[in-house]
């Protein structure tokens, strides 16, 4: 078993920035990732709101070039929710670039990418091997699982997909994407609508916190998206995931030191440091929220469960 695990390479990936960061900050973040972070693949592109996409457009080429020059593969992520004409056009535009590797986050992109190699993103509902087989026939080469997948299903899915020529990826760090809506909740909180939002979401680089009536931190709002307050942390489950056949481990970007986060996860994947030491280093980042790992254990997503490898 151990030999099989080591024979497969484990790649660390960086998911798309989900938040509306200032474009210069966005560019500099990726420049630093290119220069310093031990990630093999970087997902770029606006996933949440079509209105934000033009803000990053001027920086896009330079960022992609810098990442590529640093030896990282670049995948362009598409919108997670596609409904209006503008959203359809944005997705079509991304898919029209035949040189680009595209990550599909809504079924609309599948129509454009049929027969072409592509990635399937975590906003797609891929829960079982039959769905993987359908997607693989259409050209899917990598699938990032939904965040709520429990370990039992991850294991069963990986066992069946190994023969389909599809690699399987899962998020291991960052706030959990929990819901999408047609409505912008950033705009709503400020008495505006999606059309008149004036990009109010730019003030919350990790999402806008929602607290319960008892002032308990609960969720984070990011435009049309709702995320967990907690940060997913599967540092203690990496070895189990490797054993199951997961080969790509996704970090979801936040305003904390993502180069450091990447280094810690890389060190555990390479067995250079033990889990307790890595966990202590992650604690030392002093994030503004606790860690959770409940989905992995089939428990409430917000819960923290002791890893079996501890």
């Amino acid at each position, binding site marked *: 078993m151990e030999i099989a695990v080591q024979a497969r390479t484990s790649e660390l990936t960086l998911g798309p920035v989900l938040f509306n960061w200032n474009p210069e900050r966005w560019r500099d973040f990726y420049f630093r990732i290119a220069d310093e972070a031990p990630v093999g693949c970087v997902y770029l592109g606006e996933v949440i709101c079509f209105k934000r996409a033009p803000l990053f457009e001027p920086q896009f080429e330079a960022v992609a070039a810098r990442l590529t020059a640093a030896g990282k593969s670049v995948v362009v992520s598409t919108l997670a929710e596609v409904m209006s004409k503008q959203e359809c056009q944005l*997705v079509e535009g991304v898919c029209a670039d035949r040189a680009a590797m595209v990550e599909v986050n809504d079924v609309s992109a599948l129509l454009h990418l049929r027969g072409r190699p592509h990635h399937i993103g975590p906003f797609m509902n891929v829960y079982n091997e039959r769905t993987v087989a359908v997607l693989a026939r259409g050209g899917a080469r990598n699938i990032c699982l939904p965040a709520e997948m429990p370990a039992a299903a991850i294991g069963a899915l990986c066992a069946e997909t190994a023969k389909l020529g599809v690699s399987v990826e899962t998020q291991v760090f960052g706030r*959990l994407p*929990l819901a999408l809506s047609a409505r912008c909740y950033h705009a709503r909180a400020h008495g505006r609508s999606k059309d008149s939002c004036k990009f109010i979401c730019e003030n919350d680089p990790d999402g806008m916190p929602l607290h319960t*009536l008892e002032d308990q931190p609960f969720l984070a709002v990011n435009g049309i998206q*709702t995320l967990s307050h907690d940060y997913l942390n599967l540092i203690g489950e990496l070895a189990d995931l490797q054993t199951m056949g997961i080969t790509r481990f996704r970090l979801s970007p936040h305003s904390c030191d993502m180069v450091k986060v990447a280094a810690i996860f890389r060190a555990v994947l390479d067995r250079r440091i033990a889990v307790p030491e890595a966990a202590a280093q992650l604690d030392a980042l002093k994030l503004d929220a606790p860690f959770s790992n409940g989905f992995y254990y089939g428990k409430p997503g917000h819960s923290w469960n002791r890893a079996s490898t501890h």
Partner: protein
Amino acid sequence: MTEAQAYQRPELVCPAGTPAALRTAVDAGADAVYCGLQNETNARNFPGLNFTPAELEQSLSYAHARNAKVLLAVNTFPPAGRFALWGEAVDRAARLGVDAVIVADMGVAEYAARRHPKLRLHLSVQAGASSPEAIRFYCEAFGVKRVVLPRMLTVAEIADLHRQIPCEIEAFIFGNIGMMAEGRCSLSNYVTGASTNMDGVCSPAADVHYEEDAERNLTTRLGPFAIDCFARAESAGYPTICKGRYFCSAKNDAYYAFEEPVSLNLSALLPDLMRAGVTALKIEGRQRSRAYVKSVVSAFRNAVDDLMEGREAAFASLLALTEGRRETQGAFAGKRWR
């Protein structure tokens, strides 16, 4: 051309949580009823609801004898390793002769299309197909004949969509309305450990708690999280995360961060929806009582018949069901809702 000729006669698709509700809906004039089996293969997997295989068979006979169709919802997402249960549900639907299965998962759709090529497939709202491209993908890949649209499009957008897709459209017109895109929400799982997509459960009753304080204010709770609080005179809503009240930095007071607790009522938009090319009008509420099903189905039956014959539709009887509760046209009336 008269007003009546501008419409095509829509199918009225009604909820049946139990065999008794199914008979009630059929008797009240439903053209079709939709229901699910007693397990996690459908998105209303609640205790006391849904059909045993024998009940489904008997209900099919009852409905078919009265020219009503029966649609079986197999509209959750089977987690890997557990697909057999969903496969059995589809096989059973084909064997018993249901008029269509309502599917969301691509694996289930592919299974149904391959094993039972004559079985009619409807795409569940849980598939979240909200664009012409997405709908065309499902039609081409699995031969889907009808799409149940997400509750996020305006009537104008539905009319536009109708011209761009090769299948029928079913749209929700009345009932409970969730704020999150269907099939793309794991808020309930985050709090309770039961998944809407995989288990067919949202805000399970076992995790719901009501707590009264000394002043008789009632806090409603899901798992460890307070969802809302009601003064003694107010009627307390069921704690659903997307209908709760929360604090954020932009507001001084707690507010409904996602939406006020409202229910959908598109009765006033019925003529517009029919003109937009909607083939089937769907009423939500498999968890509702027979009395409710009877009132709502009868009201919409009369309204559709009135409109088809060029008369004004009357909805007075629906008022009793929404009285004291707030209602909305949601996204359907225009883009400002977003």
